[in-house]
C-alpha cells in the first residue's frame, strides 16, 4: 500500500453508509408492522 487508494476508500465508505440506510429502512418497516399488529 504505497499510494492511498482513494476510489477504494470512497467505495468502502459508501457501502458502509448504504448498510446503515438499509438497516434503518428494514427496522422502520419492522417497527411499523409490529405496531400495526400489536
Amino acid at each position, binding site marked *: 500500500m504505497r499510494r492511498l487508494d482513494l476510489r477504494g476508500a470512497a467505495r468502502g*465508505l459508501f457501502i*458502509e453508509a448504504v448498510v*446503515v440506510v438499509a438497516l434503518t429502512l428494514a427496522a422502520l418497516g419492522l417497527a411499523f408492522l409490529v405496531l400495526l399488529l*400489536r
Partner: protein
Amino acid sequence: MLLKPATEDFQAIGFALGRVVLVVAAAGLVPLTWAVLQQEWKPLGGIVLMIGLAALIGASSELLRPEKSKLSWSHGMVVVALTWLVIPALGSIPLWLSGHFGRYLDAYFDAMSGLTTTGLSLLQDVDHLAESLNVWRHTLHFLGGQGIVLAALTFFAVSGVLSLYHGEGRDDQIFPSVTSTARFIWTVSLVHGAVGIAVLTAEGILQLGFEPRRAFFHAINVFMAAFDTGGFTSMSSSIAYYGSAVFEATAAVLMVAGALSFGLHHALWRRTQGLLRNLEIRTILTTFAGTLILTIVGLAVAGTYTDSASLTRRGLFQTLSAHTGTGFSSVPTAELARWSGLTFIGISIAMALGGMASSTAGGVKSLRVGLTFASLVDTVREALLPERSVISTTFHQTRRQVLTQRLAKSVMAISLLYVATYLGGAAVGLAYGYPLTDALFESVSATAAVGLSVGVTQPGMPAILEAVMVAQMWLGRLEFIAAFSLLGFVISWMTGE
C-alpha cells in the same frame, strides 16, 4: 517438568514491553497539545508526568536489549498480556490526578475500559472534566482499538511481530507481512477519521449550532469512540446529548465500519466479488437481524414507544451499539434498565456475540459464532448418517476453507471461555446482591467490551466487583490466549526448575 524462565527471557520481555510503552509517551502528546492550546494547566501536570514516566520506562528498556532480537511466540504473548496491564496503569495517572475519581481503582478501571474499547466509566461529573483529559480518554479508545502493540510495531519496529499481532486478537493477515497489514489498518482508520471528523464537525456547526472549535472537539471524540467501538462520550448523557438523528446516523456508520474486520475493509476497497458467501458476513447479518427483531418487538409489546420513528431510532441504535460493541446510549441509563423481556434478551445476545474477528469490536465474534454453529450441524449430521460416512465441512472466509476438528475445537474452547466469563462475572454481581438480569447485563457488557450499563457500574460500587470487571475487560479484549500465556509464564517462574 516446567522450565524456570532464565534472565534472557525476562530481558527479551522487558525490552519489548519498554518499546510498546513508548507508544504512550507518543500518544500523550495529543492531550498535551490540547491542554496547551486550551491553557488547561491543571491537567497538564498529570499528562506530563505520564509522558515522562512512559518515556523513562521506554528508554530504560534499552538496558535490557537482548542479544537475540527476535521474540519467541510465548514471549510475545506475555508481552501483550503485560502491555494491556501496564498501559492502563500509566494512562490512569492524569485521570486519577484530575480529582474526578473516588479512588485510584476507579481511574485504572476507566483507563482499562478506554484501552479495551469498553466504554464503561466510573468518572464523576464527566460534563466538567477538562477537555484535554476527555481527549486522552478517547485517545485510549483509539490506541486500544487499533491495537497498541500494532502501533508499536508500526512505529518502533518491535521484533517478533507475529505473536504480538495474534496476541491482540487479530487473526487475518491481509498482506504477506504483518507490517504491511498494520499499515493498511492505519490507512483505513485514518481515512475514516478524516471523513468522519469532517462530517461530524460540519453537523456540529450546521445542525447543533456549536461554534467550530467545540464542534471539532466533539467530532474527534465521537469518531474515536465510534470507529474504535469504544463508547466513551464527553457528556454524561452519552450520544443522547446531541439529540440529533443525523448525528446518531453518522456515528452508526462509523460503528458499523469499526465492527467490520480489516480483511473485509480490504475486500470492499478492492471490489472483491462474492462477499455474501463469506461465513462471517452471513453470520453477523443473521444475528443482527435476529437481535433487532427481538429488541423492536420487545419494545413494541411493552409499549415503550408508540410511534414507528421513535421505536426505530431507539431500537436500531441500541441494537447496533450492542452488536458492534460500541456502547453509545441514545436512552438514559435508568430507561435502559427498564428495557425488559424480549428487549433485554435481544440487547444482551447482541452484546455477547459482538462484531467481526480482527475488527475493533469485542465479544465472541461472528466468525466463532458461525463456526460453532457449523460444528454443531456437523455433529448432528454425524449422528444421523451411517457410521462409515465421511463428513467434510467447508466454509467461505476469504477463500474456501475446511472446518477441521482442530479448528472447531479451538473455536468452541474460546467461545465457551467467553460464556464462562459472562456467567462468572454475573455470579460475582449476584453475590453482591444485584438482580440476576442487571449482574448478567453488566458482566456481558464488560467482557464483550461493549459499555452499555443498567446502573451497576457507578462510583462507589464494590471494589472486588470492580476489580473483577477490570479482569473481564482485559481477558475479553485479549481473547484469553495471551492472558493464559502470562499465567503459564508466572507458574513456570514460581514452580519451574
